[in-house]
């Protein structure tokens, strides 16, 4: 019964993201915008671009994760769906997990899959593209989980989107550091690629545990 409820939650959020007004493709377009703006700002210096390319992709990923995050719980809080969810046999932690999974599937995963393509805009070579895509794949769950805590804290605040960004962005710094350093390690250097990558995986797992519990606690507390 619980699995069925969790599946229903994920399926509903995916359907909502795909419908009119959903944030489905929006974060991907925003990601493209930021990545496309950087070469215009820096000028056509290919060496410089390919050196800072992974950092640009990661910064863009952090910013576009914020798209739609402010409505993650707020939309359900406003229309009463959250009351429906508290009445289900699924604990609130399960609800958070399902919603975060759906959000990651519509933002983090497309970002990671599209990043090799966008790497072309910042003159990444194929090895760097692969490495950046891999770090985004294992690192974006951490961003989403951290963001979910902020989304839960600001769920009952009107226009909480800016507060959310201010609260959440500092907490995303560790993920950003290790994401970029793993991508750069793949391009050569003294540190082997797997060391920062393993730390990035660990960050995602830790964020998964703490983020789920903290977001559920924040939702309970706000009621």
């Amino acid at each position: 019964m619980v699995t069925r409820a969790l599946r229903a939650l994920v399926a509903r959020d995916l359907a909502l993201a795909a419908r009119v007004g959903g944030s489905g493709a929006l974060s991907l377009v925003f990601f493209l915008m930021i990545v496309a703006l950087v070469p215009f700002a820096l000028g056509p210096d290919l060496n410089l671009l390919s050196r800072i390319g992974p950092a640009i992709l990661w910064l863009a990923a952090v910013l576009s994760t914020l798209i739609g995050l402010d409505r993650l719980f707020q939309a359900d809080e406003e229309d009463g769906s959250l009351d429906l969810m508290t009445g289900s046999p699924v604990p609130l932690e399960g609800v958070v997990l399902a919603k975060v999974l759906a959000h990651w599937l519509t933002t983090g995963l497309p970002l990671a899959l599209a990043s090799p393509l966008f790497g072309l805009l910042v003159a990444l070579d194929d090895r760097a593209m692969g490495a950046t895509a891999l770090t985004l794949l294992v690192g974006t769950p951490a961003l989403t989980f951290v963001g979910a805590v902020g989304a839960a804290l600001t769920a009952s605040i009107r226009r909480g989107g800016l507060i959310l960004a201010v609260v959440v962005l500092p907490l995303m710094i560790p993920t950003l550091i290790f994401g970029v350093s793993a991508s750069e390690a793949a391009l050569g250097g003294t540190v082997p690629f797997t060391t920062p990558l393993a730390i990035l995986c660990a960050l995602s797992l830790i964020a998964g545990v703490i983020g789920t519990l903290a977001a559920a606690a924040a939702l309970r507390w706000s009621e």
Partner: protein
Amino acid sequence: MRLNAQNLAVRRSGRRIFSDLSFALGPGEALMVTGRNGAGKSTLLAVLAGRLKPETGTLTVSEAGEATISECLHVVGHRDGLKSPLTAEENLAFARDLLGAPTASPRAALEELGLGHALRLPVAYLSAGQRRRVALARLLVCRRPLWLLDEPTAALDTASQGLLAGMMARHRAEGGLVIAATHQALGLEDARELRIEAAKPRPDDIGARAPAEEVWW
């Protein structure tokens, strides 16, 4: 199931809403919660639904197996819990999967409320009364013994009010409980009435020192 509330008192943002509220409800019984605007009817329903913690008092459920109180109840209130981009059928199917214990298909529930034609329409296209009927159809798609209804007839036409009265009567005949906050007669036969009087302000309450009568000059 049986529901027993003892000496409930609620404080929100430092203001005492009501205090010393007690009632007991057994299978097939109904309770109408009345009171002036702002007396705390919706607050009482929020406490019963488990969304607010009472300051004092206890709320116990018995004869409900292992289920907690929030797993025994349906809430239909001002915030209808419907997603506008999804169709009525999708909304009801989601509620059924989320809450468990399915009894009727979304189609059957909607047809019972006279909304069979709206099955595949996004809820955004529906009027306020039709939305309310979709929310009420949630009561039928899965079985839960306690119905908490906050102004259930708001925006409903006379025919739908009759349908709702029939639904509630059937639910009570099957041993269900109904608690409704309302200003109107709902067609609930021999329902008990719980009238919430505003709590007397105490000296430590915020706003207690406000003048009793507003003065104009």
